[in-house]
């Protein structure tokens, strides 16, 4: 335990603290919020922060804090699931194509490059037209948009890894190809993958906001950080807090996740241990 404590880098605990408290807020928000996030109150439209409403209210008199708490759950789910799917599918395909090479590689990579040729947000827009403008539509669309970059990164590491002698050593030991991939190839891809996954989590949060902004996100009145940010635009001159608080939430989350991602990468990589 003592050893663990000494090795815990500042970015690990700061990142952990931020992400942990956000998760806590989201968790609480699932069961209790100060006000009903959907309840309209026309006596308190655009109330400034302080007093009864800590973070103020929006143009319909809905409590911003309650909406942020509930929105955290939605936004976190969307980002987590879309990045999770992209990482799973991209890694599996990346290891497969990188290790097997040949025809499999060429077919999958041709398809992958075609996908990459579309800008992510455009691809997501098109997919959402098919999948429907709801949270599962967003998740699916973002997952498909992010898979190609995961695949590229993983395949790249696998291609360089498979030339290393320890892959040959594993074969000489009599290990099967599948075992070698799982035991030696995959763990060595974790470092670039963590970095990519954490930054993708950020992109997903932003993309969700952007899609909501375009009216393709989670339909109102359900709150997400993205559609709150989008809605704040029309009242920016009279109620600046409507945009600021969701913005702070998004940036803080990104910061926390990036710090945590760096810490995780260092931790997963034995070569980085003890360097701090």
């Amino acid at each position: 335990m003592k050893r663990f404590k000494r090795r815990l880098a500042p970015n690990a605990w700061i990142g952990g603290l931020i992400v942990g408290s956000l998760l806590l807020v989201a968790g609480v928000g699932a069961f209790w919020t100060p006000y009903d996030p959907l309840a309209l109150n026309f006596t308190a439209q655009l109330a400034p922060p302080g007093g009864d409403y800590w973070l103020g209210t929006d143009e319909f008199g809905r409590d911003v804090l309650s909406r942020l708490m509930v929105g955290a759950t939605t936004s976190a789910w969307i980002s987590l699931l879309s990045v999770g799917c992209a990482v799973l599918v991209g890694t599996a395909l990346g290891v497969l194509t990188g290790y097997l090479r040949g025809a499999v590689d060429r077919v999958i990579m041709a398809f992958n490059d075609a996908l990459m040729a579309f800008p992510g947000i455009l691809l997501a827009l098109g997919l959402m037209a098919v999948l429907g403008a709801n949270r599962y539509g967003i998740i699916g669309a973002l997952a498909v948009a992010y898979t190609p970059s995961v695949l590229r990164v993983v395949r790249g590491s696998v291609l360089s890894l498979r030339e290393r002698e320890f892959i040959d050593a594993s074969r000489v030991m009599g290990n099967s190809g599948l075992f070698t991939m799982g035991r030696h190839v995959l763990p060595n891809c974790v470092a670039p993958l963590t970095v990519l996954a954490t930054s993708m989590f950020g992109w997903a949060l932003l993309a969700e906001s952007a899609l909501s902004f375009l009216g393709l996100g989670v339909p109102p009145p359900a709150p997400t950080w993205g559609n709150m940010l989008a809605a704040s635009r029309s009242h920016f001159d009279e109620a600046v807090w409507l945009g600021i608080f969701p913005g702070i939430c998004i940036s803080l989350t990104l910061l926390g996740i990036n710090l945590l991602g760096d810490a995780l990468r260092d931790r997963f990589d034995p070569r980085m241990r003890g360097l701090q």
Partner: protein
Amino acid sequence: MSTPAAPLLRVQDLSLAVAHSGTRVVDRVSFTLQAGELVGIVGESGSGKTLAARAIMGLEPPAIRRIGGEIEFAGRSVPAMTPAELRDLRGARVGMVFQEPMTSLNPAMRVGRQLEEGLIRHTKFAPDERRRLIAEMLLRVGIDADAALQAYPHEFSGGMRQRIMLASVMLLKPALLLADEPTTALDAVVQREVIELMVGLARDHATAVLMISHDLAMVARYTQRVIVMCRGEIVEQGPTEQLLRQPQHPYTRRLLAAMPRRSPARAVAAAPPLVDVRQLVVDYGSRRGLFGKGPGKRALHGIDITIQPREVVAVVGGSGSGKTTLGRAIAGLLQPSAGEIRFDGQRLGTTDAAVWRDYRLNCQMVFQDPNSSLDPRMSVGALVGEALRQVPGLSRAQRQARIVESLNEVGLDAGHASRFPHELSGGQRQRVAIARAVIRRPRFVIADEPVSALDMTVRAQILELFAALQERHGFACMFVSHDLAVVEQVADRVIVMQDGRIVEQGSRDAVFDQPQHEYTRRLLSAIPALQASGDGGVRLKWRIEDAGTAAAQAARPLGLIG
């Protein structure tokens, strides 16, 4: 030695340290160099030899700071020079040849332009004059000027590139040439040609040479004085002959004792061959484009090899000789195009899975570079233990006991099991790789250049360990190496390969003492050897006396006794 007036180069109490931590990497190093003198700096990796030499040109990496001492070149202080003065010094007065000819020439520039660069920067010759000088110099280094000027570096072999590098440096007739491991990346036969060319050129222009090398025999053969460095300090320096005959410092003695030497011949009991390779052919398909296969390249042209139980067979040859391909094909890492491999009388590669399994359990491999052959994410215990996965019926405790036993066998202890490869030294890593190879008690081990990535003293220990394990467990071994000195120490039988064919094979003593094939002779005469003289020192030995050797003797600089 006479006492000449002003030395060309005087390094006094030079100390270099890592800037952020203050660790000294070069510690109070002092030496001088006279004009036209050939001096070698010998030391293992981390001894600071390269840093000390780079500091002479003011080329130490940014992370390294000079914390004391003085460097004087032709009476002027190098550290006191302005950047502009340093640029005038570099190239024009002090030239440098790097280790890796593959990377020290700019791949995107024609050779002619690269040669001209220095002349344009440092001289005022007219273009015609420059071209004439370049053509002359290329002729001198043995390269066809007309074709070479318009060619790109990748069109040349490693040896040719090092010649071009030499030509570009010597064009400016520098007073001092720094050569950092100039032949380490080259094949044995080419090594000799390049180094003799370098020495010859230096003598033509009365250029002093500071040769940095880990190769004692090479330094002994071509230098007048030797500086021995260890952990940033000079432990000993003096005239080459004397230093080799009577080394004073314990480290120098250790270095000399670590030189590989021939062990007494062993008798290998006659038995049916354990490994029997017949007419093995390996073709490399050319890169497959979108539209099918191009013509392939044949790497092995029908190789026949037999290896007896308990026998160590060395396969030697230059790069491109197919020796590594042969090892990989026998290990099952490459699919042979034709021919057969029999292990213990059973033919491999047939449909019988049991035969293949048996072979897989009994054939193991030790790779060249322990940095690359150990998975960086696994602990030593897991690395060594992974080999036991294929052994049926082992309990957890038994497996653990086997791991510890294997680690002990290679001179590591149980405590190392929880460490990671990056926490070990190069020698310890190779020990782990050996432990992993022998833990299953294989009957046959393929070792692909197992010591060529290691330092001299470590190399000697690993070779000793390998021999001891081989003696104890009695595995047969195929030892692939380009290093004749190492082969002479370990092998029972030697196979010489060239261009994918076996050109000579026979017992070690026969091949080394009475080489039959022309290529074997050239290999042997290319590499000087050091022979123990019995009193802790060594003397230079020529493996084969030939015309070239006599020429080299004659080419030796003055001032050397014997």
